[in-house]
């Protein structure tokens, strides 16, 4: 393999969470707004929380802030709202990181559940009462439930990616 392709590969591996976050935000298909009545989850929340807890250096806050702005533009919510929610998620993740001595998936997930409950509540209040958007509370509950459940799956996938692919390619 030539050095150029190796460099590109390394760059892609290194910036994988950032690329994934931007693709998730800009892509037309968004699991957060799936047309299914009883299924939706916020992939961006999972990604941001996981990488803020586990590898904060992989996903810079500024990228998260920009991703939030882009999400607002694409989705049509007031600009700055998603950024605020993402950053609140980062704050809680950072707090968890600071207070955790022995990390475990269960603890992380419980903390994640509390965090998404807070962020979605704030989002609901802001959109419903300040910006006059109409939201279904039932959809929000479904969204929170599936985001929480799928956190286990995605954290394992990200773990696998970090452990095997990244270490094999000597990215870190």
């Amino acid at each position, binding site marked *: 393999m030539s050095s150029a392709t190796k460099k590109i590969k390394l760059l892609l591996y290194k910036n994988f969470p950032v690329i994934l976050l*931007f*693709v998730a935000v*800009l*892509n*037309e*298909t*968004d699991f957060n*707004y*799936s*047309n299914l009545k009883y299924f939706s989850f916020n992939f961006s929340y999972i990604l941001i929380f996981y990488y803020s807890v586990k590898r*904060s*250096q992989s996903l*810079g*806050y*500024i990228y*998260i*802030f920009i991703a*939030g*702005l*882009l999400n607002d*533009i*694409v*989705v*049509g*919510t*007031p*600009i*700055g*709202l998603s*950024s*605020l929610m993402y*950053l*609140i998620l*980062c*704050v*809680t993740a*950072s*707090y968890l*990181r*600071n*207070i955790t001595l022995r990390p475990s998936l269960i603890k992380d997930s419980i903390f994640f559940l509390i965090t998404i409950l807070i962020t979605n509540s704030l989002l609901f209040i802001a*959109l419903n009462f300040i*910006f006059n*958007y*109409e*939201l*279904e509370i039932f*959809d929000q509950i479904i969204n929170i439930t599936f985001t929480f459940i799928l956190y286990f799956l995605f954290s394992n996938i990200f773990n696998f990616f970090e452990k095997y692919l990244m270490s094999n390619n000597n990215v870190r």
Partner: protein
Amino acid sequence: MESSRDDFVIALRSAFLKKGVQQRFSLLTLIFFSIIFLILGSLNFKATNYVKIAIEEIVYRSSFVVSLPENLLKDNYLVVQSYLNLYKVNEKNISELKVLKSKTISNNIIEYENIKLKQLIDDYFVAGNEIFAKVLIDKKSPFLRSVIINKGSKNNIKLGMAVLDDIYFIGKVVEVNYTTSRVLLISDINSKIPVSLEPNSIQAIMSGNGNERGIIEYISDANLKNKSEKLIVFTSGMAGLFKSGIPIGKIDKKNFLANTEFMVDFYKDLSQLKYVKILSFKKEFLNSTVQVEKKTSKIDIENLENSKREDINFLKKQKEISKEIRKKLEDQNSSLNEQLIELRKENTELNKLISKANIINPQEKMKEKDVKFLELNLLYGNKCSKDNFKNILKKKYKVGTTEYRACVLNKGKY
């Protein structure tokens, strides 16, 4: 107790203020930025609006690029599906086409009658500015049912313009950038469209339900459920933004039973939009009558031509029928002539026979007279004959003479 509170404060402060590796801004700074963005966005400053438009331009384009692989897959899937359904769809189309063709002429006439009537009440709108656009992004956000199109203020797109897919109303323009615009779909909760429900002409306001259907709100007739099985929803043209009579969807009675609300099924699948038509409507004033007259005269000519064509066809058929009848009559005539000739022949033969019979009869009569004479001769011959001496004083005739014969036939009298 105090130390645990200290730990909490330290951890929280660290979370907010500590810049991580390769982090240029702390989280607190970025949170402030987001709040500032939110406030500026809601205050509607000109400068922030320009910045917003610039960001939107970039984001919409990049979102379109990012979505390309996914859209490619979607398109291919749809193509395969359409190939699989080709035969069924074709059969259905053919049967529908037959029905529609028959309806087209009457519809045209009704349409132009409608134009004339609308002209009379000064409510005739024409599409002023017609622009076709491609849908760049269709993010199915529950907060905002909208699509981004690739035409903006550069292409004379203005706020509030009506957006149609084919002939069906699908939304209106709510945000205009330089080369892109955002269209608020009728399925959005915030979309409030004045509509008219036909056939009862009931006025109402329709909003979206956030999914793929609409809800009729502020309906003026509460007993609507008892009236009709199916209702068609059109734009009513109230407020003068859109022209009246653009079809939107239909209300099925089945939905009445399931729901207390009136649910509208849109004619168009709003999740499958690719190309849309953006229109602004304006009233026609001075030239309108001329145009309508032109249109109506055009339709009159068309109708006249159609009726002429129908007449010609009718006459042709009549001609064919009369030809057939004539042929039949000729055949009948010839056969009758033949019969007549034969009958005449028979007649002549019969006449001959009659004349023959007439020739035979006098001889027989003579024979009969002779027989009668002989019979009478035996009885009265003595009275008339000279040879009998008893008749010496009476007048007598010689046997064999005509006088003798007459005397015998007169039974011996003179």
